């Protein structure tokens, strides 16, 4: 089912390509030994190389190259053993040298792909055109002074990967799914933390529209620097709408750079006056071409962690979980790891059920992430073990989990402390049921005359009398027996 926008002249298709800037996880910057860590006091994560001092020279950071290669492998992309750094020349306050070092003509990574899952259960392949390494710029702060902007160069020179997709995206949903999947892959490999709030992932969105059936692309506009998946999806929608209106009014769309204003839900032209950019790219003479060995690429490949697609397939095969469960469990590697720790030595399907249900609910409620979960995987496994061996029932287990979250005590300790051990003594259960039935003779009569629904009432009353500790299966069985007497 294709995504279409209906205009006054009929239906339109949208064509979207994304350029994602992903900050590389590394200790130091791409070409200097200054810290690449986010934050820090202004202008402290800055070396004289980053600040473009006279005579300062760049030296390439090996780990940043390795991270790009790992990412390329994760995108099943061509790894270019020869690549090169070019200078992109332009003046801006937060670009100290007057040029950005980037890989324009010869990127380190070539064509690759990302498989995205859509809500209707289908999967689409989005092509990746290229991935290259480049430097981030510093930060201009505009709101501290009425007439001046302040410059902080902490980000200047941090390594970025620019990941360019083919114009394969056909709906805002696909754009969102692509970004989520890309972020998932980057996080799995550990090459980018994908934190959009801190700006470690940003997207430039190329949008054009055309009539279904047209084979050529119409003019596109580039929406710069969109910093959340939701905004990317919104920006595509409003920009496509704008372009359709332009075409339908008999106009033409100009190729230009635009800015997305999420407050007013519109895009605005960013084209600055007479100043058409001319970046004058040329090979950076301070750096040699980057030549890497296939054997090194192979080493990196061997050391690569299991990627989301593979992990999901394995969880389904190994633990018998559903496709839905496996995809939720695999969103974050930490979640999948947590799950596997729980599932090894517990009922794996019960484990998936609990993770997706009460456990996630508990995390949400406490505002904690899987990494600092108040309950460890081993703790959860113990709890599930108590259910499986009939020490407690499922309902009591929920109560125990609450307690675990609150106190940090182990499941068995809580069960002992609170005396929650399930009653499996048929004599005790029968006696409790007989008391309930004796106190509710009217209901018993109603039940016997056909009001089946009252069965639940008797279960509830029994469990209540037994403080929830009755073995549910035994309670059911005994009730049925006594009610039919």
């Amino acid at each position, binding site marked *: 089912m294709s995504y279409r926008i209906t205009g006054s002249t009929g239906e339109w298709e949208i064509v979207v390509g994304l350029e994602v800037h992903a900050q590389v996880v590394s200790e130091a910057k791409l070409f200097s030994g200054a810290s690449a860590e986010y934050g820090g006091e202004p202008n402290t994560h800055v070396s004289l190389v980053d600040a473009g*001092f006279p005579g300062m020279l760049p*030296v390439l950071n090996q780990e940043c190259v390795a991270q790009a290669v790992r990412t390329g492998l994760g995108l099943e992309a061509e790894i270019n053993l020869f690549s090169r750094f070019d200078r992109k020349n332009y*003046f801006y306050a937060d670009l100290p*040298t*007057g*040029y950005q070092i980037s890989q324009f003509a010869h990127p380190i990574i070539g064509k690759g792909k990302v498989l995205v899952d859509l809500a209707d259960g289908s999967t689409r392949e989005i092509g990746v055109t290229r991935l290259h390494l480049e430097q981030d710029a510093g930060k201009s702060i505009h709101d501290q002074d009425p007439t001046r902007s302040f410059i902080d160069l902490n980000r200047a020179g941090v390594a970025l990967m620019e990941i360019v997709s083919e114009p394969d995206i056909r709906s805002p949903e696909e754009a969102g799914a692509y970004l989520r999947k890309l972020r998932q892959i980057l996080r799995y490999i550990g090459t980018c933390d994908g934190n959009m709030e801190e700006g470690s992932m940003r997207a430039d969105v190329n949008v054009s529209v055309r009539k279904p059936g047209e084979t050529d692309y119409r003019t596109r506009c580039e929406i710069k620097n969109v910093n959340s998946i939701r905004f990317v999806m919104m920006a595509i929608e409003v920009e496509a709408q704008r372009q359709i209106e332009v075409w339908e009014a008999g106009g033409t769309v100009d190729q230009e750079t635009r800015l997305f204003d999420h407050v007013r839900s519109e895009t605005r032209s960013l084209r600055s006056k007479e100043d058409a950019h001319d970046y*004058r790219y040329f090979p950076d*003479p*301070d750096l040699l071409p980057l030549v890497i060995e296939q054997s090194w690429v192979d080493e990196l490949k061997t050391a690569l962690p299991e990627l989301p697609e593979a992990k999901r397939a394995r969880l389904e095969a190994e633990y018998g979980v559903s496709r839905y469960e496996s995809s939720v469990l695999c969103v974050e590697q930490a979640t999948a790891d947590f799950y596997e720790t729980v599932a090894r030595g517990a009922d794996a399907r019960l484990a998936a059920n609990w993770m997706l249900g009460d456990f996630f609910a508990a995390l949400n409620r406490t505002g904690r992430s899987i990494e600092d979960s108040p309950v460890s995987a081993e703790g959860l496994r113990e709890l599930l073990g108590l259910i499986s061996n009939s020490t407690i029932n499922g309902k009591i287990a929920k109560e125990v989990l609450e307690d675990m979250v609150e106190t940090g005590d182990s499941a068995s300790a809580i069960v002992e402390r609170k005396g929650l051990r399930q009653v499996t003594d048929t004599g005790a259960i029968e006696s409790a049921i007989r008391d309930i039935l004796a106190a509710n003779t009217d209901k018993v009569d109603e039940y016997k005359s056909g009001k089946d629904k009252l069965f639940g009432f008797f279960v509830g009353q029994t469990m209540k009398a037994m403080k929830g500790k009755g073995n549910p299966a035994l309670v059911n069985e005994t009730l049925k027996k006594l009610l039919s007497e």
Partner: protein
Amino acid sequence: MSGIHDFTLASARDALKARKISAVELTNAHIDAIERLDGQLNSFITRTPDRAREGAKAADAALAKGEGGNLCGIPLGIKDLFCTNGVRTTAASKILGNFVPPYESTVTANLLKDGAVFLGKLNLDEFAMGSANLTSAFGPVENPWKRKDSDAKLVPGGSSGGSAAAVAAGLVLGATGTDTGGSIRQPAAFTGIAGIKPTYGRCSRFGTIAFASSLDQAGPMARNLEDCAILLESMAGFDPRDSTSVDTPVPNYEASLKRGVKGLRVGIPREYYTKTGLSHDVALLWEKGMRWLQEAGATIFDVSLPHTEYALPSYYIAALAEASSNLARYDGVRFGERVSAPSLDGLYEASRAAGFGEEVKRRILIGTHVLSSGYYDAYYLRAQKVRTLIQQDFLKAFENVDVLLTPTAPSGAFAQDEKPTDPVQMYLNDVFTVPASMAGVPALSVPAGLDARGVPLGLQLIGKFFDEETLIAAGHAIEQAAAFHHRPTLHAGVSA
């Protein structure tokens, strides 16, 4: 009796080690000479006598203990393109304002480590862009030489004109230079001294203000090749902070002086006769040079460097393209001259308009033009392809010969007011020196004689990659045969 100003760097080093003279005496004598002569020569932009005296004292203390590096107590001048920790560095440009680097270039750090004493920062063409030292924001440098028939002020060559003049006049025992297309060799020739442009990658570029990164190379300038060899050994070496620095051991250059040239194959590139417009005096000297080498046991071969005539235009494209980008960092924001303006672009345009001199602006604009959209392939890319051909010419020639012998410049030093008005005519000064720069091979200039008007002329030797030793050996043979002992009119050893 020979005085303190007759020392060469080598003989001063030996006298210091033998404690025949103290570093403080030697340094003070040079500081005095600077005070006496540099008002006229203008070879220094910044003088650092106090630092120099402190350095000399420390050197004497080390020497007294029998310690100290190979340059311990030797007073040197530093081209003001090398960043020096705590000492203003200008590149002879207004745009750097009162820039005081909080770091030391690798080359000068190496010299300091060996005990050298810095007398100050030497004048140059602004950002090393020029061949006559007329573009400095701190005024032109005067060549200490005079024509025998006139009192006209001669240029010292460029861009290392201050270094050349200071060495020639005996204000320093040696100096650092940088050579992008001839900036060590041509001024050395114009002032009757020796200078070496090493193989690209031999000396670190870290901390040296860039003109054209793929061509810039630091090197020594001194009275003779022995002194240059001593300096080069200290300046050279691998530096992990420069990605283009080459990790290969530094040989004992001084030892190569004694090698001789027996059996050496010397190539004479025929295109340097026909395509360069050299003067009669220079042609005669060149012939002499060939004879000297032959007499010392070398064999002369005719060789061809077919792309010679294209070296200069492709050099200007490559160098200016790189310069236009390298000089973008001078924007009035983090250091240097700033002219206030209400907008950011206004600030850039005003600061750069006020800070850069005419020649630098012209070169930035040409460099910007040849990289701009629609011109890149026709100019920059083509020039880099021609550069490949030029390098191949040299590699091919070196299959059959060990060194090439050529003049250093088409003529001797010209007068300040004879400067050609057409920039292209000015660029032609570098016609002999630029090809080696483009190929990255080492080259040197030695003083070999005087022209008809009594100004010095130099001969250039070009060698194989990292074979500075053979160059020095051949250069020394010329030195011995030429027996160039002339002194300029203005010299520290001549009393007023």
